[in-house]
C-alpha cells in the first residue's frame, strides 16, 4: 500500500476517531474548567463523561461505528421527546452484544446445512450475528459507494433514510446477506439497546425508560397496584445503580424508588 493511501488511511481514521468514542462522550468529556461553585453538578458531569469514555469498543471497527451511529439515529431519532438511539449509546450496546455471546450465537444451534427455509422456520444463516453485521455493513457501504459515491455514514439524512427503507423493504440487494435479514437484526438490536438495562451500555441516562415511563428495576408495588389510573412517576433505577449503591434498596434488595412530581423534578 503506497504512502498516499497510507495518508488516506490516516485521514479516514482521524475522521472516524470521534466515532470511536461512544456517542455523547465527546460532547460530555470536554474538560470545561467549571467554576468551583457548582461542584456537584460538575462531579456528576465527570462521572457521566468518564462513564462513557471508559467504555471502548470491543468488536466494531471505526468504520462500523460510523455506520451504526448513522443508521440507529434514523431507527430511533433524537427529537423533542428526547434522545434517540444514537444518543442513548445503542451503537456501543450493539458492540457489546456482538462481542458477547449473542454475537457469537452462544447456546444456539449452529450446525449446517443452512438452506433458506420458510419464514416459519426462522434464523437459518451460517453467519453469526457478529458476522452478519460485518458483512451487512460492508455490503451496504459498497452499495452506497456505487449509487452515491460515498459510504453510508457520509450520505445526507435523506439519502440514508432512502437506503434504510430500501433494506427494510428488501429493494436493495446485498451480496453476502439478505438485506431484510440484516435490517431486521439491526432494528431489533436497536430497540433492545434503547430499552435494555444501562449495564449493557445502551439506554444511556435511561433515555428509553424515561421516554415510556418505565421504572427499570422494580420496587415493591403491593401498595400501588390498586391505585388505578394514577401514573407512577419514579426515577428509573438501573441494576448498576444498586450494585454501586447509588440507589437505595429494601430488605429484599428491591429498589426504593425516588418519586417525582408532575414537573418530573424530584
Amino acid at each position, binding site marked *: 500500500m503506497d504512502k498516499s493511501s497510507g495518508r488516506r488511511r490516516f485521514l479516514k481514521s482521524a475522521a472516524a476517531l470521534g466515532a470511536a468514542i461512544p456517542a455523547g462522550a465527546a460532547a460530555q468529556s470536554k474538560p470545561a474548567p467549571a467554576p468551583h461553585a457548582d461542584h456537584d453538578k460538575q462531579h456528576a458531569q465527570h462521572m457521566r463523561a468518564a462513564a462513557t469514555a471508559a467504555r471502548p469498543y470491543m468488536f466494531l471497527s471505526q468504520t462500523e461505528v460510523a455506520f451504526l451511529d448513522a443508521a440507529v439515529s434514523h431507527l430511533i431519532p433524537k427529537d423533542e421527546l428526547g434522545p434517540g438511539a444514537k444518543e442513548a449509546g445503542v451503537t456501543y450496546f450493539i458492540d457489546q452484544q456482538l462481542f458477547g455471546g449473542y454475537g457469537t450465537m452462544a447456546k444456539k444451534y449452529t450446525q449446517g446445512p443452512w438452506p433458506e427455509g420458510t419464514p416459519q422456520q426462522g434464523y437459518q444463516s451460517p453467519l453469526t450475528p457478529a458476522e452478519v453485521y460485518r458483512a451487512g455493513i460492508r455490503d451496504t457501504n459498497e452499495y452506497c459507494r456505487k449509487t452515491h459515491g460515498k459510504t453510508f455514514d457520509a450520505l445526507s439524512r435523506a439519502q440514508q433514510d432512502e437506503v434504510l427503507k430500501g433494506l427494510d423493504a428488501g429493494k436493495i440487494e446485498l451480496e453476502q446477506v439478505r438485506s431484510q435479514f440484516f435490517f431486521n437484526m439491526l432494528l431489533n438490536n436497536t430497540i433492545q439497546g434503547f430499552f435494555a438495562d444501562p449495564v449493557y451500555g445502551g439506554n444511556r441516562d435511561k433515555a428509553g425508560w424515561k421516554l415510556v415511563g418505565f421504572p427499570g428495576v422494580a420496587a415493591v408495588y403491593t401498595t400501588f397496584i390498586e391505585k388505578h389510573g394514577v401514573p407512577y412517576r419514579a426515577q428509573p433505577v438501573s*441494576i448498576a445503580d444498586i450494585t454501586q449503591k447509588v440507589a437505595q434498596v429494601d430488605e429484599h434488595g428491591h429498589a426504593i424508588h425516588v418519586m417525582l412530581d408532575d414537573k418530573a423534578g424530584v
Partner: protein
Amino acid sequence: MATKLKPVDVVTVGVGLTGTILAKELADTGLKVVGIERGRWRDTDPDFAMPGAHDELKYVIHKELMQDLSKETITFRNAMNETALPMRQLGSFLPGEGVGGAAVHWGGLTWRFLPWDFETKSRTLARYGAKQVAEECTLQDWGVTYDELEPHFNRFEYLYGVSGKAGNLQGKIIPGGNPFEGSRSKEYPNPPLKTAYSSTLFKQAVEKMGYKPFPVPTAANSRAYKNEYGATINACVYCGYCQFFACEMGAKASPQTAVLPVLMKNPNFELRTLCNVVKINLDSEKKRAVSVTYVDSRGREFEQPADLVLLTSYVFNNVRLMLLSGIGKPYDPAANSGVVGRNYAYQTNGNVTAFFEDKVFNQFMGAGALSMMIDDLDGDNFDHTGLGFIGGGWIGAASSGARPIDFHPVPPGTPRWGGEWKKAMARYYNRAFGITTHGACQSYRGNYFDLDPTYRDAYGLPLLRMTFDFRQNEYKMSDYITKKAAEIAKAAGASRMNVNPRTGKYSIVPYQSTHNTGGAIMGADPTTSAVNRFLQSWDVHNVFAIGASAFPQNGGYNPTGTVGALTFHALEAIKTKYLKQPGPLA
C-alpha cells in the same frame, strides 16, 4: 466405555416440577432416588438475587434460564412435504434447563382442565356428531376423568399455594369464582391476588356483557404460605418480572420454593447436575428398563441401573428419549399407526391490544398471572353448533409485567421505526393493555414428532423433528373468541385496538406459549396411546412418562395445573399399586 454405577431404586430423568415431587414422595417411602438433570444447580439465593434478577435483556431476549440449543434443539417444518430445519434460536416456546426446569420461569397460571377436556372425543361425538370435527382430527379421551383427578388437583394446588377463588365448591356455584370449573372439594389455599386497573376495566365491561369474570388462579402466592412439606412460599410484591424470570422473592411457587428445600435434605435423594441422559437401556426382550446412560460435565459416560425410571423432563425430551431408546412403536402418520410422537398439539393464542387516550395502567407492575378472566367461551361451555369448530379458551386482561424491550403497544398503521414509532411508544406504552385469548388446539394425523434424518445434537444423536401446523378448527376458534375479546375491549372503552386472532401458518419465530403437548399420550388403548391411564409405558412397565406429553390434545388452559394433577395421579399408582406388585397396571 460407559462406567457402570451401583444400582438405585428410582431415577428421575429431569429435575423439574414433576421430577421433584415424585422424588420427594418416593424418597420418603425409603427408596433410593437419583435425580439426573442436564442443567446446573439453581436456587433463589444466590442465583435469582436482586438486582440482577430484573434484567430483561438477559432473561427475555437472551433466555438465560432456558435450553442451551448448542447442545440440543429440535427441527421444525409445517408439513410433511417440507424439509425440517433446526430451531437455531428459541422463539415460539421456551423449555427450561437446569434444576427446576421451566417451572422456574413459568407464568404461574394454575388451572384445572374442564371435565369436558378429559372426554373431548366422546362428549363431542355425543353432542355434535362426527361431522363437527375434521376427518384428520385424532382427538381422543384421556382414559382418566376429572373426578378421578380432582383429589390430585387439590393436592397440587395446596403444595404450590395457588391463589384464587373457587367457583364450584362441592357442586355449589360460588359468586366471584369460575362457575364453569369442575366441582372442587376445597377452596384455594390462598385468596386471589390484588386487582390491577386493566383487570377492573375488563371486569366492569364483561359483567355488563353478561359474562362471569373471576380472578385467575395463580401460583404467585397472595400471602406467605407454608405448604405440607413445611416449605414457605413468600408473598408476591407485583414487581412485574415474573414470566421468563425467576422470582427473587421466592413468591412464585416452583421446585425451588415448594419442594427442593425439603427434598435436598432427604438422605435418600441424590441430585446429579450437568448430567445429560442419552438413553434408557432395556433388557433383552425390551419389556423392562435396566438403566439409563448419561454424560457428565467432564464428558464421561455413566450407566446408572435402576428399578424404576421416571421420564420427568420436558415434553420434547420425554418423547425423544423414548424414540432414541426404542420404547414404544414410533408413530407413522402415513399409516396412522404407532404411538410415540403421536398427537403433538400446541396452543392457539390470539390477542387484542386496547389503547386508551386518557388512562394510565402502569402495566410494568404485575405478576405472572395477575388478571381477570372469563371462561364462558372455553371448552364446551358454549354451544358450538354451526360454528364449525370445537374447543375454546379463556379470555383475560393480563397484567403480567410489561417491559419495554418486549412490549411495544403501538396502534395499527404505526411504522416499525423512526420518529412516528417513537412517539407512539412514548404515548401508549403506559396507556394500553392486552386482552389474551388462550385457545385450545386439537390433534391431527399430520402433526407429530419423529427423529430428524439429517441434523444431530452435540452428542451425535438425531434431533427431534416437529411437524406441526394449525388447522381450520383452530383458525375458526381463534377468530371467534378473539372477536369476542374485541367486543370486550370496545366495551372497556378502548379508543383504538389491534385485533390479532391466530392466522396463517404456525411459525416457530415469535413467542406464543411453552404449552407443547402430546407425543407420549395417555389413553385406554395401547394402539393409540404410549402410556396407560397411570402414565406407565404400555411396553416397558418400569418406565413412567410424566408431563404435558401425556395430553391427547390441548385444552384452552395453561397446562401446569393438570400436569401437577397427573403427577400425583401417577405417584398414587406407583405407591399403592406398582411398588406392591411391579408389572403392567393396565
